[in-house]
């Protein structure tokens, strides 16, 4: 008798943990409004606020661009420049695509999935993610200003071969028939990204 509600609760947690966490931060922030000396709540609220602003200023146009990309860009083009037989020629294209972007790494995930869906080789998808995390131009200007160009230059030059090598290893380690879950859903239909593996009780 006791097992069922517990399992139900765990299942609900697996599904609703994002809302729960969000509510916790909002509650902490609201509490800090009542008690001025509750610094933790105020700061947590402010942090969340700045993240939400960042998200709202980058993600909507990014998703629109991904949507337009999926509709307009022919699969042939991506296959030719970044497909399975593109070899190392794809590297500069992936880096160019990544460096002109801005924002945290999670912005790059939908773009990466869009590329994958258009026939971009897994290796090149991971090169894109590597370049995005290591050498976005807006980030580099910040880095040069605070840590100096020697630091920036050395870090960038060392990072390139490292993330290219990691992407190749990544492709080898994934099974040959690997498809990301976000790709398996029909591209028109379902609820966007559909059900996630989270609902299988990883939390």
């Amino acid at each position: 008798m006791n097992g069922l509600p517990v399992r139900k609760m765990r299942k609900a947690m697996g599904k609703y943990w994002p809302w729960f966490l969000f509510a916790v931060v909002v509650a902490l922030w609201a509490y800090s409004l009542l008690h001025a000396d509750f610094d933790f709540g105020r700061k947590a609220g402010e942090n969340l606020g700045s993240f939400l602003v960042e998200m709202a200023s980058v993600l909507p146009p990014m998703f629109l661009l991904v949507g337009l990309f999926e509709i307009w860009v022919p699969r042939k083009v991506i296959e030719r420049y970044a497909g399975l037989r593109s070899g190392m020629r794809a590297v500069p294209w992936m880096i160019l695509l990544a460096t002109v972007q801005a924002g945290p790494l999670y912005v790059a995930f939908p773009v990466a999935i869009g590329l994958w869906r258009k026939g971009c080789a897994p290796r090149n998808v991971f090169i894109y993610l590597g370049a995005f995390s290591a050498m976005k131009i807006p980030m580099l200007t910040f880095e040069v200003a605070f840590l100096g160009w020697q630091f920036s230059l050395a870090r960038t030059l060392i990072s390139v071969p490292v993330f290219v090598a990691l992407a190749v290893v990544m492709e080898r380690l994934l099974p040959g028939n690997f498809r990301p879950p976000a790709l398996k859903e029909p591209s028109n239909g379902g609820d966007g990204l559909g059900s996630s593996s989270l609902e299988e009780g990883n939390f």
Partner: protein
Amino acid sequence: MISLWIITGVVLLVSLAADRRKTQAAVFKGLKMFVGVIPILLGVLAAVSLVLTAVTPRMLERILSGTGLLPFFSALGVGSIALIPGFIAYPLAALLRQNGASVPVLAAFITSLMMVGVLTLPLEARYFGWRAALLRNGLALCGAVVVAGGMAWVLQ
């Protein structure tokens, strides 16, 4: 950020001029993907802001200053877990350097911060699956060690 909106606007207008129906489909598709990740994104961002509030810059200063292996691995750990925006991370790194943090420690911190995201794993797993997300983060952590080691070799 503004340039991103402008570029998107221009592309959208061009697309509208070329084909209204296709544009509608594209916008619908993009918005649907956006709405689909909003819940998990809110959760991840809430978790990140809690961690960022609990860990103060002064704590990081104390953990990451000095030389030796302990600050190096602490830098990797903190960098992997946290998701600190650039406008906070770089001033912090400059401060750490003033207080005597070594180049490898700074490189480990910055590189793991950018390449590894433990707190964003649920989000990454939603796109790539847990297996690929964990694999990418594990490899990226190794990569951060290699980059930091290379930095130490080049700059010292």
